[in-house]
């Protein structure tokens, strides 16, 4: 990059452009013929010029040429052709015309395709180059960059540039040649008409671009403003919760309104210009035929021009405005695209680029090479001094605390060491290598700041990405498709490796292969006390389909074993198992009816009461009236609660199937049923009350609404439901079956196959312990952990809590196995108690390696070898806490500590 649009296009698509230009030249004679033939048709065939003076036949398709005069001037006839009559001659010429028109179309088709390909290839190259550049911005510039603006530039703004790349040379050449040919053709027919056409074209070509200049200025303005709009909108969307808290929506809404207003004004001015220019253009185009008809007609009448010529001239002129207009359009596109190209270039090259990384193949400095700082000084871009002339040696391996008494010295040093600040004076070197730009001299230093950067994808993806530094080649054998892809990537300067290649560097992780990957990730999580989180997520999240038959078997074994272990522990009463012939008091009435897990929305709790089939079953067992009664009692209880004031959390949780904000409709239903009785109440009322009743769980709500008779009826309805459900309905539900897994439920629920009872002290803990013990015993722990790692993080990790994000970022750092770890407030999100525990664990794990941690003043310095106290920008004290280890230990991965 760093050059104009045309030179960029020429540099990267020279060969293709030349090829298309050659095609254009080839098409010229054809174009000429398609212009010339109508004249012949009119003159020779229709008006019969060729047949004048008694000639009755002409020869066609004869092939002859005449030697130039200096070679004798002889006429050489290679083929005499056919003699044809007038009508045949007309047909012959007409078909010839058709042929050349088709040929001309064919040329156009090919030229357009080629153009499109040139444009798209250059676009792909440009986009990738821009992306690559952003990746190499200095950290300071990255922080100052609005991601939405960059994304909008890479995605939208370069799009028209891409379209223009194909047109840059080809279209202009094509149009110029076409217009010149047409003009030349007209001139050959009649010089005066030709000059007239040329004059009008001249006016078009000179005046209109001038008028369009203002149009371009407006267009540029519009682009800048809409880019700003995109940036602000994305910023406000990100900050929306804060804006809402402080009721600042109105102010920010007004700002967006202003911006939209400005965009509208620009757009309106733009339209006025555009259509004025268009009007002028059309006028000129319409005026010309007027001249042609009058002047041409006059000349024809006077006999200075024949009718054939006139027809041909008019036909040629009809062809003329199009290339001219397109040429003017092209010129405008050129101006637009050039401006956009320059702007995008400016936006992407304003930032200082990073130095290249240490050349490949050079071994990293040894892990015990000390880091030397000399005269290190850093001021931010506004000139505030953040770190002042620091000179010291950091021996490795060593655990160093950078304690901040006040100010930012500690954080600044951590960021410089971690390559997060590059605009400093003085030098940092490791061994004999000097830090420059992003490069940390090849040393394996991992910096982790306070913002855990999590990307969309699974937790596993988020951790394993650190091992994906180099592609080991395609994962699957070469296929035709991949060869094509490779060729295209080569033509456009894109990476030759694909994301689907095998990327993970198992050697670097110290493991044998993919089978051990999850173990390594879990080991990393264990170090930072994140194991529980992963395990719980795997245990409680939806299980999904289990492909591995042996895992299926083990899960079913675990279900059986769980019952045994529960009984062994004397806690059989803690779980009420699903039994097809027993009412499960711990489950709701609706669950007891279904006795299965809904798969789609049809039998989801909120749709249950509306389902006609289920309703039929309820009516058949005369359950409707008792259920309505239960619903009524529940509703009245809730209305009582609402009447007492705002319901407490405890009550709202237990009655979460009620909408507490709408007591009126509830009241209406209750009145309806009390006034009209079950029989005459509206069906909507009955449906709603049944829906409520289906959520009732006796031991949870304790209103004493379920008796044995009702249980029997529910069981009978359950039986008929299972019996009569149609084949299609069967796809909406998985019935509980001791011998089958239910994929929509969690592993925990699958093993439990029942419900934990209410009112038993510590029931949940005990059951949880036994489930986990059973899972371990059955060897499905890896499967559960795999499920936990499979969990989606969401864009920016938004599906996770801040603590989870921090834990994942820490685990990622551990997983990467760096020589030196720099933690710059990386654990603060965990909360004080947890932070201390995680820090102790990290110190233990990184024993024998270097750990540099920023701490607030009050933190315990236990476990650190050395503490640097910073006051403001300066070093206050350098305290050795433990004598540095004389014999640096071999850096060996301890795995899960």
């Amino acid at each position, binding site marked *: 990059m760093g050059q104009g649009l045309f030179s960029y296009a020429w540099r990267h698509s020279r060969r293709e452009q030349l090829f298309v230009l050659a095609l254009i030249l080839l098409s010229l004679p054809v174009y000429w013929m398609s212009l010339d033939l109508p004249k012949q048709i009119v003159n020779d065939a229709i008006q019969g010029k060729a047949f004048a003076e008694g000639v009755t036949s002409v020869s066609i398709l004869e092939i002859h040429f005449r030697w130039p005069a200096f070679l004798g001037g002889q006429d050489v006839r290679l083929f005499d052709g056919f003699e044809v009559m007038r009508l045949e001659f007309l047909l012959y010429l007409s078909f010839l015309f058709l042929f050349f028109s088709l040929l001309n179309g064919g040329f156009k088709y090919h030229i357009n395709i080629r153009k499109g390909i040139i444009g798209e290839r250059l676009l792909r190259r440009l986009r990738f180059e821009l992306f690559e550049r952003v990746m190499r911005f200095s950290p300071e510039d990255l922080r100052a960059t609005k991601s939405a603006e960059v994304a909008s530039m890479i995605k939208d703004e370069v799009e028209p540039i891409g379209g223009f790349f194909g047109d840059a040379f080809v279209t202009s050449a094509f149009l110029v040649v076409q217009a010149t040919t047409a003009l030349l053709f007209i001139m050959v027919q009649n010089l005066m008409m030709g000059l007239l056409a040329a004059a009008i074209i001249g006016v078009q070509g000179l005046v209109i671009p001038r008028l369009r200049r203002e149009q371009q200025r407006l267009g540029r303005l519009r682009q800048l403003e809409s880019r700003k709009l995109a940036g602000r909108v994305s910023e406000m969307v990100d900050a929306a919760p804060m804006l809402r808290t402080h009721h600042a929506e109105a102010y920010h809404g007004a700002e967006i309104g202003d911006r939209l207003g400005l965009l509208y004004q620009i757009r309106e001015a733009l339209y006025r210009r555009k259509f004025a220019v268009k009007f002028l253009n059309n006028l000129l185009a319409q005026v010309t035929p007027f001249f042609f008809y009058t002047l041409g007609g006059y000349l024809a009448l006077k006999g200075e021009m024949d009718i054939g010529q006139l027809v041909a001239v008019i036909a040629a002129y009809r062809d003329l405005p199009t290339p001219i207009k397109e040429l003017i359009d092209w010129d405008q596109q050129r101006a637009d695209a050039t401006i956009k190209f320059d702007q995008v270039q400016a936006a992407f090259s304003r930032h200082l680029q990073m130095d290249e990384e240490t050349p490949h193949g050079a071994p990293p400095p040894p892990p015990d090479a000390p880091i030397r700082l000399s005269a290190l000084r850093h001021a931010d871009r506004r000139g505030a001094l953040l770190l002042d002339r620091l000179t010291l040696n950091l021996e490795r391996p060593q655990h160093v605390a950078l304690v901040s008494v006040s100010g930012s010295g500690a954080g600044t040093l951590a960021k410089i060491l971690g390559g997060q600040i590059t605009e400093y004076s003085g030098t940092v070197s490791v061994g004999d290598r000097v830090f420059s730009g992003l490069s940390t001299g090849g040393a394996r230093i991992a910096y982790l700041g306070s913002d855990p950067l999590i990307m969309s994808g699974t937790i596993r993806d988020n951790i394993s990405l650190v091992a994906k530094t180099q592609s080991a080649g395609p994962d699957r054998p070469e296929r035709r498709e991949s060869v094509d892809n490779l060729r295209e990537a080569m033509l456009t300067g894109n990476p030759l490796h694909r994301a689907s290649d095998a990327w993970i560097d198992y050697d670097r992780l110290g493991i044998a292969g993919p089978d051990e990957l999850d173990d390594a990730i879990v080991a990393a999580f264990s170090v930072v006390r994140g194991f529980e989180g992963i395990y719980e997520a795997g245990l409680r999240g939806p299980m999904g389909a289990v492909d591995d038959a042996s895992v299926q078997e083990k899960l079913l074994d675990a279900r059986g074993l769980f019952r045994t272990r529960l009984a062994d522990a004397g806690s059989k009463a803690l779980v009420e198992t699903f039994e097809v012939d027993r009412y499960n008091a711990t489950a709701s009435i609706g669950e007891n009816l279904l006795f299965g897990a809904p798969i789609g929305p049809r039998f989801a709790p909120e749709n249950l009461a509306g389902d006609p089939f289920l309703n039929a079953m309820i009516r058949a067992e005369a359950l409707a009236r008792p259920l309505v009664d239960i619903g009524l009692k529940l509703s009245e209880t809730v209305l009582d609660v609402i009447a007492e004031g705002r319901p*407490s959390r*405890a009550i709202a949780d*237990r009655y979460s199937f009620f909408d507490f904000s709408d007591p009126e409709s509830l009241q209406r239903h209750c009145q309806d049923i009390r006034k009209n009785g079950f029989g005459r109440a509206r069906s909507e009322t009955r449906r709603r009350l049944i829906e409520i009743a289906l959520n009732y769980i006796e031991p949870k709500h*304790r*209103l*004493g609404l379920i008796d044995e008779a009702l249980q029997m009826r529910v069981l009978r309805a359950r039986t008929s439901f299972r019996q009569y459900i149609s084949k299609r309905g069967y796809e909406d539900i998985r019935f509980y079956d001791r011998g089958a897994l239910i994929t929509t439920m969690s592993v925990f629920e699958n093993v439990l196959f029942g419900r934990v009872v209410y*009112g*038993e*002290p510590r029931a949940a803990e005990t059951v949880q312990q036994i489930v986990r013990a059973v899972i371990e015993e059955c060897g499905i722990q890896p499967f559960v952990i795999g499920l936990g790692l499979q969990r989606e993080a969401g864009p920016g990790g938004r599906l996770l809590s801040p603590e989870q994000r921090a834990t994942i970022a820490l685990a990622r750092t551990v997983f990467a196995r760096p020589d030196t770890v720099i933690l710059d407030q990386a654990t603060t999100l965990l909360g004080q108690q947890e932070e201390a525990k995680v820090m102790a664990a990290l110190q233990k794990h990184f024993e024998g390696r270097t750990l540099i941690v920023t701490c607030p003043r009050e933190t315990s310095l236990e476990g650190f070898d050395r503490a640097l106290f910073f006051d403001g920008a300066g070093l206050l004290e350098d305290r050795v806490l433990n004598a540095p280890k004389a014999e640096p230990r071999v850096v060996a991965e301890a795995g899960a500590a």
Partner: protein
Amino acid sequence: MAIDDELDLLQRSPVFASVPASRLRMLALGSDHMVFKPGQAIFEAGDPSEMVYIILSGRLALSDWAFELRYIVGIVGALLHKPYVATVRAETEVRALRVSRTALLDLATNCPHTAMAVMKELARVIELLAMRQPAEEAHA
């Protein structure tokens, strides 16, 4: 046991007798009915005090102390928001309503009768302590 029976029991206890039935009902609606076997711990010293237990029936024993807790347990921890200081066990079968700390405090703030009931219970414990173990600090 249904909530109506629980309310009957509560209304007969000296602590809650003066609390309006509708308020007691709210308390019960947001509670869990727990059954402790003899010897089982209601809670152990050091557990976070998120829950308060309103005793419906049965006898309790406080570790190390020889006085009886009768109506509300866990209230000190709940008021001070500190972990439980002592372990409380069921001596006989104990039935209790388990109420979250916040639910009880909410109720006490909105209903002076409940606040009074809590104060009465605390006063009763202090009286017991004053009579039996004048040297020791109050724990409950």
